[in-house]
């Protein structure tokens, strides 16, 4: 967990202010609350499907703090609730996605967690893993092509996606053209039911960076400060013309893949419980209290405000209308459309 200088007893905070550290922690609390809300709504029969990011909280809250709003582009995957919150999406927008309401960015078309927001620089993506990575590289090419220094694309994926051909193709092209591109791998050790050992012979994904001729780094994704430092270093290099970086954060998937998955068919309660001992949320809370950045009272107040915000977002989003059946036929092409033209 977040490193403390042994000699001075001070927290190595990599330039993060108290306010930023508290914002990271609040994001982590909000992620967990919203994650649970999706699963609760599913178990209540109110939504057909939910996906969780539990175990990724520190990694995503720390990485999001290295994202420059209004400049950078995020190309995430479907287990990136905290990153999307961290770059500016609201709990209300998350709940609109969970409830598939008409005013959701995607108009209720996509699964939950497939967020997009042009205003936030959040690229639209599908459920097909690694298909978004060439898009991220193309966006990075456009940024470099226009000479827009100070901007970079942060692309993310899980360990499972690193087996796809387009993962390789994207890394290769980004490096050939020294694009403003950062590949952040959230290694939670599971591709649904398939463990790392069956995904790759070399489990240290960051080592592949050498093969692409780009810098690579692995960090503890349970530590949001270490995450921030690694991602910020990579993003700064990308923004200033230094080319792409592969950063790998280690974490763990505490929940099943989705509400439709039973992870007890391929792992045991004991395996998960053992990794729960490293749970980044209470661990980071302890660090912040130890260093006087928050009090126990502050934490209780934050938990209450996160719960209140989630409840209000849930109630408001649930009241919003579904898309109309006629919305099925819009935004296929620009303008009206028939395949047969007369």
């Amino acid at each position, binding site marked *: 967990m977040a490193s403390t200088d042994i000699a001075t007893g001070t927290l190595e905070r990599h330039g993060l202010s108290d306010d930023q550290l508290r914002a990271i922690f609040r994001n982590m609390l909000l992620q967990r609350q919203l994650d649970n809300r999706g699963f609760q709504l599913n178990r209540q029969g109110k939504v057909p499907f939910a996906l969780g990011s539990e175990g990724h909280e520190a990694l995503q809250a720390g990485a999001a703090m290295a994202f420059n709003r209004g400049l950078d582009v995020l190309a995430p995957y479907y287990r990136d609730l905290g990153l999307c919150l961290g770059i500016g999406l609201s709990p209300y927008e998350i709940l609109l996605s969970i409830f598939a309401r008409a005013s959701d*960015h995607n108009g209720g078309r996509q699964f939950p967690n497939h967020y997009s*927001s042009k205003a936030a620089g959040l690229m639209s993506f599908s459920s097909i893993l690694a298909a978004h990575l060439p*898009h991220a590289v193309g966006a990075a*090419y456009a940024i470099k092509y226009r000479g827009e220094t100070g901007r970079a694309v942060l692309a993310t994926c899980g360990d499972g996606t690193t087996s796809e051909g387009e993962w390789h193709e994207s890394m290769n092209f980004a490096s050939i053209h020294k694009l403003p591109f950062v590949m952040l791998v959230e290694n939670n050790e599971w591709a649904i039911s398939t463990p790392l050992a069956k995904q790759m012979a070399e489990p240290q994904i960051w080592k592949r960076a050498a093969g692409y001729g780009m810098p690579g780094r692995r960090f503890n994704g349970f530590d949001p400060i270490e995450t921030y430092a690694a991602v910020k270093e990579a993003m700064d290099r990308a923004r200033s013309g230094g080319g792409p970086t592969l950063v790998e954060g280690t974490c763990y998937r505490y929940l099943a893949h989705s509400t439709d998955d039973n992870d007890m068919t391929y792992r045991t309660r004991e395996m998960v419980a053992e990794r729960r001992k490293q749970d980044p949320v209470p661990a980071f809370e302890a660090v912040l209290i130890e260093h006087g950045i928050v009090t126990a009272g502050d934490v209780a107040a934050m938990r209450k405000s996160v719960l209140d915000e989630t409840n209000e977002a849930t109630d408001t989003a649930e009241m919003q209308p579904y898309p109309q059946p006629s919305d099925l036929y819009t*935004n296929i092409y620009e303008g009206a459309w028939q*395949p047969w*033209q007369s």
Partner: protein
Amino acid sequence: MAVVSADSTVMNNVEAVRATLYEALKNDDRTVIIGEDVGARGNVFLITKDFVAEFGEHRVIDTPIAEASIVGIAIGMAMEGLRPIAEIQFADFIYPSFNQIVGEAAKTRYRSNGEYTCPLVIRTPYGGGVRGALSHSVSVEALFYHVPGLKIVAPSFPADVKGLLNTAIDDPDPVLFLEHKKTYRLIKGEVPNGHYTIPFGKANVLKEGTQLTVVSYGLYVHWAVEAARALQDDGLSVEVIDLRSIRPMDKTTILNSVEKTRKLLIIHEDNKFGGIGAEISAMVAEEALFHLDAPIRRLCGPDVPAMGYALPLEEEFMSSPAEMADAMREMVKF
């Protein structure tokens, strides 16, 4: 390229593609070309020859051999404000990019409810008759015309190549632009000078006739006209329609013609089963069945994986102008 008048220039199809791409690069800084061997080599058919010297490597982008990401990177460029023209070197190599075209480009606007769009052109040479064997001869249109979100055009004449490619480049949605490689240097024609566009979804009546409607596109449309002209000497009157645009497709021109001639023959190089001809047949059956005096007939590629390299295998796969004339004669006499 011979200038025949102040208003037009004679070009072949390669020259028409090249001239149109050149103008696109010249007129819009957002335009980039991305594909295999498009730079120093100038594309394997020399379509982009010398472009890199004039426009630079950052606008005429040689890629690694990686078709999925050629299309995928172009999608990302389009989402971020550029106007990419991607090239798949041969249509046979488009399969690795199938998901990027069908799962991503065609759904970008739809899945984001219009927040993101994908103004992208994917050009690719297709078709046989060039001893291209199993992997340099295929027709791919039927694999893609099932997909809402895509537009597909397959022009046959240099003037149509220019007008439809300009429309594709201006289009706010992804367009698959199919160029029959046998027609590249075989077919020459006058091309109007200056910028013009031809709307998608408009077929062209190449030859008027009263006894049979033939619908075709690509290389075969040229052979169909040749066959129909030969039959004219025997007093047979065959109308030949060049579809030009496959998605969207022009219903009115087909129905007007069929209601006049009362017979329909569809000719295409792609496999018959599940091909473009099946959709046209179904549409005519739905909309004009009682105008027909004969069963609809399709003269198409056989249900085999591809045409072989050996000449007899290629010739057996493809229809000849003589076979087309025979089919037309039988239909007229039915």
